[in-house]
């Protein structure tokens, strides 16, 4: 999976241009919002203006008032209290903050919350049903796909995105699908086994384990 597709089609370059020039400055949320003028943006920043944004997070509609430069991970953690999503590099390099946007894995440190208007966001908290773990989460416990656990929510969300797109990945496809997520403890062999085992569980049929 390339970084671009991981980021839901927003390339790193485009995103940085967006951040650099600032985005927004209007109270009306439209899909063209990302092209709002630089001047308005600067004014908005100077005046500390906030703008409304609505999205669906873990199946529930949320309506927020945010500063335009706020990233998705900041909204999730600071405004919604969803601290399962971690910040490790805050630079689109490690996958620690991976969540799903319309069922595709994105780096939430790397997405402006405004760009999530109308989107469906799923975080690690949304993978569960009440207190019941998702089969991928269970597989990560069973196969010990974690050590310190800090990158684990991001790993699991990347695995979920992978399996949604490819329910029976080969080992090589798992390596490719999970390569945007760094685990400094390097629990990688167990992460690979966890994802393969989860695939077997969720796809309901046998897949090649090795």
């Amino acid at each position, binding site marked *: 999976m390339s970084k671009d597709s991981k980021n839901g089609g927003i390339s790193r370059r485009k995103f940085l241009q967006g951040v650099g020039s600032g985005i927004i400055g209007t109270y009306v949320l439209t899909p063209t919002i990302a092209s709002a003028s630089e001047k308005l943006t600067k004014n908005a920043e100077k005046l500390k203006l906030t703008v409304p944004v609505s999205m669906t997070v873990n199946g529930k509609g949320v309506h927020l008032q945010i500063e335009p430069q706020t990233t998705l991970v900041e909204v999730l953690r600071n405004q919604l209290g969803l601290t399962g999503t971690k910040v490790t590099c805050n630079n689109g390099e490690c996958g620690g903050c991976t969540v799903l946007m319309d069922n595709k894995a994105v780096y939430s440190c790397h997405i402006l919350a405004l760009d999530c208007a109308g989107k469906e966001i799923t975080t690690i908290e949304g993978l569960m049903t009440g207190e019941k773990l998702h089969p991928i989460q269970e597989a990560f416990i069973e196969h010990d796909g974690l050590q*310190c656990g800090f990158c684990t929510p991001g790993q699991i969300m990347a695995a979920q995105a992978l399996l949604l797109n490819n329910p029976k990945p080969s080992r090589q496809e798992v390596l490719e699908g999970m390569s945007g997520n760094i685990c400094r403890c390097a629990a990688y062999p167990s992460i690979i086994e966890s994802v393969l085992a989860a695939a077997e569980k969720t796809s309901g049929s046998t897949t090649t384990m090795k």
Partner: protein
Amino acid sequence: MAHKIVKSRYFGDEGLIETMAEVPADKLKAWGPGTELKIVGKPVSRLDGYEKVSGRAVFTFDVILPRMTYAKMLRASVPHARIKNIDTSKADDLPGVLKILTLKNCPKIPWHWGTTALFDEEVRYEGDEVACVVAETGQIAEEALGLINVQYETLPFVTDPALAMKTDAPKVHGWGNIIDEKPSVYSRGDVEKGFRESDVTFEDTYSTQIVVHNPTEPHCSVAAWENDKLTVWDSTQAVFAVRDTIAKSLSMPESKVRVIKKYMGGGFGSKLEAGKYSVIAAILSKEIGRPVRIALDRKEMNLSAGNRPDSVQKLKAGARKDGTLVALSQSSYGNVGAYPNGADCSTPLRTLYKCPNVQTEEYSVLTNLGRSRAYRAPGHVQGTFAFESLMDDLAEKLGMDPLELRKKNFTEVDPESGRPYTSKRILDAYLQGAKAIGWNEKRKPAGSEKGRFRRGIGMASQIWWGGGGPPAYCTIKLNQDASAHVLAGTQDLGTGTYTYLAQITSEVLEIPLEKIQVTLGDTETCPYCGLSGGSLTAPSVSPAVRDAAEQMKMKLISAASAILETAESNIKYSEGKMSKLDDPAKTITVSEVIGEMHERVLVTTGAREANPEGYEINSFGAQFAEVEVDTWTGKVRVIKIVAAHDIGRVLNHKTLLNQFHGGIIQGAAYALLEERVVDEYTGKVLTTNIHDYKLPTVQDTPEIELIVVSESDPLISNTGVKGIGEPAIIPTAGAIANAVYNALGIRIKSLPITPDKVLMALSEKI
């Protein structure tokens, strides 16, 4: 069970620690080899797995308190300067800024052994602390940093340790750049005579790079006061060390400082000491009367949070024709950055093999860069790479199989002290590891492979302390419903501590794991345990937990004997029930015992016993690597690592395997990928994010096979455990480098073995 105070010693990250410690008066019979255990050693899934996979685990980074505020550190933008003035007026005026701490308004609190202060007027590396802003939000604090105007008088700087050692080099502090103004030296026998008497000698210089810990969870603290009592949530490997540093820095009683660490996102040694940020957060929090959260960002992590020092090691070996080592010498230096630390790395050379004549001389050099800190097997990782490369070179010169050379120089006693090891199964590790990698069948003469892709096999040995020792204590609280609460002031870094301590409790008291709750990392509720580093945690804490659990069992038996009016020797304990041996129908449960005692909770505290006198405690192992080198691109791919280790008893096979995976992959990344790059003309670190600093990804995972050659080391402690965190990483780079040599017939003597070095070496050979 009675306790007594004795003198005991153990080796930690920083060398020999002699301590007076409270230990059990009578040692429990150890779980030696052959002891059948029901749950200890089994691959039990982590008890904290649910919290971690659900995102519910609250790391320090996630602590949110009512009225919390956010602090950010301003760090020096230059490698060496005197601060002439700091103007914070613009930043002070920014709405939302609550307080700015600088050297102007902060008490002069000594830091780094008094070589600097919390805020110093001299900054000695790019990233040194200059000011700290606390604000309503992180964004405001960040913005305020840009409004602080610092006037620097820049000073000459030096970043290369070779240059820093010269007499005319810029001085990092007023004094000389060599720590202690002299090398640390060691010698036994007569090394010059040894070399003269050798049939063969080999000497060369090997070097290693600086690598950065980069744990996923940034260094962070949250400080909150209630009147004169301070609570600090800290991402730390040593809650009591952090407590003591904060209490001392703020001149307050240790009893009024509580440090809590529940979950932490890795440390690898970088979180063994209190950070300046923890103390600063506490000061700011006191002044503004609100909780303060501070977290370093990834750039700060790469500038200021520590690193493994580099090394340049000039080594020489002398041997007889049959491979018997006669003399070894090492002269080396390493870059420790701007504040005192050690860069010694000669222990493997001094202790891995039998050799009568050894001399080492090592320089720890100050430069204008972020300070080095203990990093997973400090010294041993860089030392083992160089020394085991030298051993391979020597074997080649002798025309010997490198594995045979190592076996030839096996020693049963510690070559420095002459004391025997409590256990040493390295020969088994050689045998089983060689078999698993296919040493005899697959290994070809060095450089004999032709074609684009060339495979090679290499190996390296490992020695580490990791036997642990006292003091370490554990309190068990047994409730009337026979559920147990285990408390120990140690830390789980992702190593599985919560789980294996519960397993030990479950083993002894025969209580199911579901009824056991483990609390770690809280200086207020837990008894003292030491830092979690140096592979000390499991061997230090597990015997204390067993001691506490066995005491609880004895307490229950004692109570049952009183209630059932029979001798203690007539009571059998099984699965939370006590019955009379001569009348098994007479049975009472834990609940009944506690009820009869008119109590709700029974409490015992166990202690780690003293280490045995007259022995050395070490872990041993060997790793075997198979690599493939692409001679067109220069890229090295690790195909397989076989890790065969003597680590005493395994407490949990699942978490053990994961620890080994982590150590080996970190070791492989050290061999091939990771390197901090510095621009020596500006003193700037160029690799301050994890795109430029190359961390391994899942795609860098080789096949890993783990062989544990030990069952238990009953001489060390009642659980027979040695630590495993460091052994896993120590020999990996050496084994890979030797495999690369075997593939190419060319020795890459400097880590990391990057494609450019491989291609350069290949072109020089042509």
